[in-house]
């Protein structure tokens, strides 16, 4: 029988830490990307091979895109690790969630019930919320590093006038809204995709789910791109002084 759960199912515990199927797949994504990175690092050469060419093309494209937002290459290179890692992690997680076996291979969970062994990480709010918290924290750290603590705080706590004060409060609220919008946008899209695919596969198992699979591949990429781009834009907004924005 088809089961749709908003919460990720617990598979086992490590000490007091529960391990859910979403955490397991995000671990797989981490290992996969880490192995790929270490392999590519060992083959890095001044005259590139095919793999390195593709990697340079992708990273070069990301840097060019970041240049258009941040305005210079130095800043792009400085913030590339955060922005591009967010994009890669979300993309890899989303696409791994579409692989055959994810959701269909089942094991006995902690409570004894039958649960899927793997689940798309972004279909668990913990994954998206963790990423959103990390991004917003980093954005503020970068902002403080770029313009100073006082200048950064003046964005939220401005006592120059009632309007500035009100705008500051709105900015503060928007920081929390960012976390919610970041996490729920990604979670909503991926979870909806998972549900859609599960229902389609349940109703008509052959051929009909295929276009929806392609749609989810596209959605997976677009959501990762949006998450990365929003991170980039928030970083760009945070590293300029308050007066420069106008």
């Amino acid at each position, binding site marked *: 029988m088809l089961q749709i759960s908003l919460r990720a199912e617990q598979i086992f515990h490590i000490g007091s830490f529960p391990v859910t199927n979403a955490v397991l797949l995000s*671990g797989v994504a981490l290992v996969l990307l880490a192995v790929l990175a270490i392999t590519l690092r060992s083959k890095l050469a001044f005259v590139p091979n095919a793999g390195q060419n593709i990697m340079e093309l992708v*990273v070069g494209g990301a840097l060019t895109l970041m240049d258009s937002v941040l305005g210079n290459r130095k800043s792009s290179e400085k913030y590339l690790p955060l922005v591009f*890692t967010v994009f890669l992690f979300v993309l890899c997680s989303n696409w791994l969630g579409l692989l055959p076996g994810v959701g269909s291979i089942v094991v006995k969970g902690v409570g004894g019930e039958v649960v899927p062994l793997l689940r798309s990480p972004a279909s668990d709010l*913990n994954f998206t919320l*963790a990423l959103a918290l990390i991004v917003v924290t980093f954005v503020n750290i970068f902002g403080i590093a770029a313009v100073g603590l006082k200048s950064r705080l003046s964005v939220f706590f401005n006592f120059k006038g009632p309007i500035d004060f009100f705008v500051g409060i709105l900015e503060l609220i928007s920081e929390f809204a960012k976390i919610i919008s970041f996490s729920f946008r990604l979670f909503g899209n991926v979870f909806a995709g998972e549900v859609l695919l599960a229902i389609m596969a349940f109703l008509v198992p052959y051929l009909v789910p295929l276009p929806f699979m392609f749609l989810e591949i596209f959605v997976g990429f677009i959501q990762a791109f949006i998450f990365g781009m929003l991170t980039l834009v928030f970083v760009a907004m945070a590293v300029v002084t308050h007066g420069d924005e106008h």
Partner: protein
Amino acid sequence: MQQLFDQLGIDWHLLLSQAVNFFILLVVLRVFIYKPLLKLLHDRRARIEEGLMKADEADKRLAEVDIIGKGKIKDAESQALNILKKTEVDARKLEAEMFAEAKRKGAEEFKNLEAILHAREQAAHLAIEKEAALLIKRAIVRTVELSPEKIDDALIEKSVKEMKHIV
């Protein structure tokens, strides 16, 4: 709030797990990909820029060398022309000198030859004179040896023959 978190499945343990996952990935990618790759791209860019700069410099130098070469060729041509002109003048001068020398030597030789010829002529005259004297001497001797009547008869006879021949 706690009930909402429970409903949504939000658990700080899981949040921490996912955050740790992300941080590990961030560190791994930073160490193994971003840093070395950006360094490599910088190095390559620097090398390409250096290569282009050197190529520009080489082009500039080549143009300078070309200009210097052309100047030198022009100088060499001009020098060659001067040398040719000077050689021609020298040759003409030498030719004139040689011609004068040859003329002088010719005249000298001619004089020598004239002197030699004159000497030989003198010698021939002397020899002829000697020979003539000797002949006269012999003729006189013969004449002395002959009788006057016979000489007269012979002369008369010769004269008669000459007369007959003329008439």
